[in-house]
């Protein structure tokens, strides 16, 4: 996926631009984190990648085609999981929605749903409704639903931002395990610098007013990562130091 000189201005030409001249590539199989202060257009950028918004200048090219609308090959994990789940469907039903959209026959759906629920640790919640689950569990359901559509790329908008620290850490590790197992391409938006470094192969730092790329860094920390040793790694700390300065500077 390639993001070419993308800009976005809401409203008339007099309006302030939200994003200006954003240029980067997403490499096949990489875990790319985008971090930035609030209001810098992170979510807007993700919506552009998803095709939910169209840029006013530049283009986004995915697998040789210009992105002009949403596609099942690009799964979106929304930040506000309670709104993104169908409250009248059970956990299993929510995951099945993706399979239905993909045109998978009813007979094969059951087993596929069971496998995904087991993968996300939801096997005991299959018949429960989203409102009966904790936030962490609800986000697991949304991730399972996105995995079900077998996307080429996962676009995640601050998926763990609203979760408590313990839940967040375990979901981070599960996500890393799934991503490496499936060699998934992930674009992960976060406002948490440490999360970005911990998860990412590369990290993009966005600046605000208008949103633009400040820096794109290779993380270069060994995988598999570990909540304790990785976060204590000298490289981790120095990267955190450097990027922290950038976030402050803008």
């Amino acid at each position, binding site marked *: 996926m390639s993001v070419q000189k993308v800009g976005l201005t809401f409203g008339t030409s007099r309006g302030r631009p939200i994003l200006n001249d954003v240029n980067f590539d997403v490499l096949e199989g990489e875990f790319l984190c985008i971090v930035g202060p609030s209001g810098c257009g992170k979510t807007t950028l993700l919506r552009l990648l998803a095709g939910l918004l169209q840029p006013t200048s530049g283009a986004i090219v995915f697998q040789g085609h210009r992105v002009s609308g949403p596609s099942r090959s690009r799964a*979106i994990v929304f930040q506000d999981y309670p709104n993104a789940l169908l409250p009248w469907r059970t956990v299993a039903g929510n995951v099945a929605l993706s399979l239905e959209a993909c045109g998978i026959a009813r007979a094969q759906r059951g087993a596929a749903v069971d496998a995904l629920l087991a993968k996300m640790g939801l096997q005991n919640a299959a018949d429960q*409704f989203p409102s009966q689950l904790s936030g962490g569990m609800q986000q697991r359901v949304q991730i399972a639903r996105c995995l079900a559509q077998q996307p080429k790329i996962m676009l995640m908008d601050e998926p763990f931002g609203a979760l408590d620290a313990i839940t967040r850490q375990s979901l981070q590790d599960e996500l890393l395990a799934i991503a490496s197992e499936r060699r998934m391409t992930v674009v992960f938006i976060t406002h948490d610098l440490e999360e970005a470094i911990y998860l990412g192969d590369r990290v993009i730092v966005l600046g605000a007013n208008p949103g633009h790329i400040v820096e794109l860094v290779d993380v270069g920390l060994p995988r598999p990562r570990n909540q304790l040793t990785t976060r204590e790694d000298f490289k981790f700390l120095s990267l955190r130091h450097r990027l922290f300065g950038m976030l402050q500077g803008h």
Partner: protein
Amino acid sequence: MVQRFIRGIIVPALAIAVWEAASRTGILKLEFLSRPSDILAAGIDGLRDGSILLATAQTFEAAALGLAIAVVAGVLAGTILGLSRPIERTVGPTIEALRPIPAVAFIPLTLLLFGFGLPMEGTVVAYACVWPILIATVAAVRGIEPRLLEVAQALELSFAERMRKIILPAALGRINVGVRVAVGFALVVAVTVEIVVNPRGLGYSLIVAQQSLRIDLMYAQLLWLSILGYTVNALLRTVRTSEPDLQAGRAA
């Protein structure tokens, strides 16, 4: 429950007792006030020979027909208007102009179009019932969580799938509110049309009883209508209490 029932029955029981006593002792000599015992007898006769039940079936038939048309038309049109602001802005003023016309004002027109019978009555009922359903549906569709529509987009659901899997289930709870209001209208309008022109159903039986001076039968039918209305309302209340889980799985 039983205690509440007994409490609720005190007033009508007392009124009937006084009424009966007054008419028997001759204190009450109004020509158009029959005795409760005669009314009861007339009602039982009417139920036994099937005339009241037939009339009830005819009234319900028209109410149900009109309601069915109103649900289909109201939900369909309401969904389109709820999804599209431009269409809503174009059609909205026309709707606002049509809506205040009392449904019964269409009796002369529908009579010309359909003649006496079920179709004209059903049409008038449908006209009365479509508005609460339409308005509730527009609000319901407009109130759908935008994130759910984006999920539908992201999964590239077709329009039909989007309707069936996202929009209608998400809007169902609020549409139900409109339908419940419409059910109340349906019975009232059907009986009104029958009283005014249409020679069928309970409204017409009422008029016939009145004109043939069967005052006891007229009262019996009024009583029967009250029982029917009460029953329909009670049924609607049970739908209301079971709605939250139906609407969103938000039970528990």
